[in-house]
């Protein structure tokens, strides 16, 4: 086994043990996080959308589900399930757009199970989970017309995006709708920072589940993320110090 593989196994096993351990400690670990105004405003915008009878839009990006960049889209799917349960009673049910067919099938499945959980399965329509294009820009082009037509007042763009996210955020802003944008790639994050009202940068994307109060384990996974980050910081600083000492000796 290579050293990289060994390090990988240790990291995965350590994270899993930490996650399960913190979860089992239950009330002894209180979940308290700093406020992320963007997510607070997004939750408020969902309530407004339900009251006003407007639509909530989810954009899940265009990552192929067989590739490694799907992790970010899974965050979007998790939020989709939770928010659809909350907004199931709305006159205009939530709608999702994806740039990958596999992701669209998953979004339809999530929408259906969320309606079932809310006791409103008859409200579900497969049209609510759409593929708008199969290349990043055709996906954005298809989603643009949907954003303009569907009376959208709140939009969550969370997933694996490239620079095409700039077109989507601009389109949502032009509709005077609320946008919460988060992406996993660096160019997309730079674009989101410049064009979106409420951007999420870096790992904030992966905090959405915990902040939406999806489950206790989401909150605990944020703690594990923090612990791992500090460990990496210590390893980096230790490495730098050792290199400095080696140079002095």
């Amino acid at each position: 086994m290579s050293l990289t593989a060994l390090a990988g196994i240790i990291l995965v096993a350590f994270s899993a043990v930490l996650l399960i351990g913190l979860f089992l400690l239950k009330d002894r670990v209180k979940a308290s996080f700093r406020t992320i105004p963007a997510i607070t405003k997004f939750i408020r915008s969902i309530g407004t959308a339900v009251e006003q009878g407007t639509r909530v839009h989810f954009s899940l990006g265009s990552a192929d589900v067989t590739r490694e960049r799907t992790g970010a889209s899974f965050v979007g799917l998790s939020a989709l399930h939770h928010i659809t349960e909350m907004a199931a009673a709305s006159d205009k049910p939530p709608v999702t757009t994806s740039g990958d067919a596999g992701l669209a099938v998953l979004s339809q499945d999530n929408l259906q199970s969320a309606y079932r959980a809310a006791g409103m399965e008859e409200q579900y329509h497969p049209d609510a989970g759409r593929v708008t294009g199969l290349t990043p820009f055709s996906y954005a082009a298809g989603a643009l017309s949907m954003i303009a037509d569907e009376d959208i007042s709140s939009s969550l763009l969370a997933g694996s995006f490239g620079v095409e996210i700039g077109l989507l955020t601009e389109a949502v802003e032009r509709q005077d709708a609320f946008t919460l944008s988060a992406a996993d790639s660096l160019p997309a994050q730079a674009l989101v920072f410049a064009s979106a009202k409420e951007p999420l940068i870096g790992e904030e994307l992966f905090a959405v589940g915990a902040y939406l109060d999806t489950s206790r384990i989401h909150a605990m996974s944020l703690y594990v993320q923090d612990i791992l980050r500090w460990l990496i910081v210590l390893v980096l600083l230790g490495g730098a110090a050792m290199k400095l000492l080696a140079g002095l000796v």
Partner: protein
Amino acid sequence: MKRYFSPAIAIGVGLLVLFGYFFQNSSLNAVRTIFVQWAVLLSAAAVFVGVINLFLVHLNKVIHKSRDRVYSLFLLVALLLTLTFGFLYSPNDPVMVNIFNAVILPVETSLMAIMAITLIYAAIRLLRRRVDLMSIIFLATAVVVMLGAAPTPFFQIPLVADLFRPKIINVLSTSGARGILIGVGLGTLLTGLRVLMGIDRPYGGK
């Protein structure tokens, strides 16, 4: 039954693929390859489902006379024509390649150009929308990097091209990018673990 069956399959296959990735020389790696090939086949089948979904959504728009039905009609005609040509010729046939080069490529390039304009417009509006230290640093950095890269006819802008721009790109930007990518990597790891434990179920159900 489905409630337990789907997570059991997802967790089992997920663990096998993960261990197959770590133990490259074992039989687990062969199992991993088979599962990944199955996933690719399923993904290809999903593309067909996705195209049907796209077709039905736009057909509904045409039938219900929605505002932009002309565009939907255009999409339907183009989709059917391309599909017919695709069946008549193979995807690598010069006719199909020409369709791609003459239609999809220029359209996507135009969208990229629109994106550049959109970004400039967004940058101009940034300080009106959000006046804070980070926005000012963002804009100032963008201006310095662009000035440093701008083709000037007779001379380079002193300090900007030879000092500030390389320092920003090689030191500040690279270290910041690594920090962000480590954060994204950790987030992806934890998301994957939640899926493997059956807590997050992107395949639906709770």
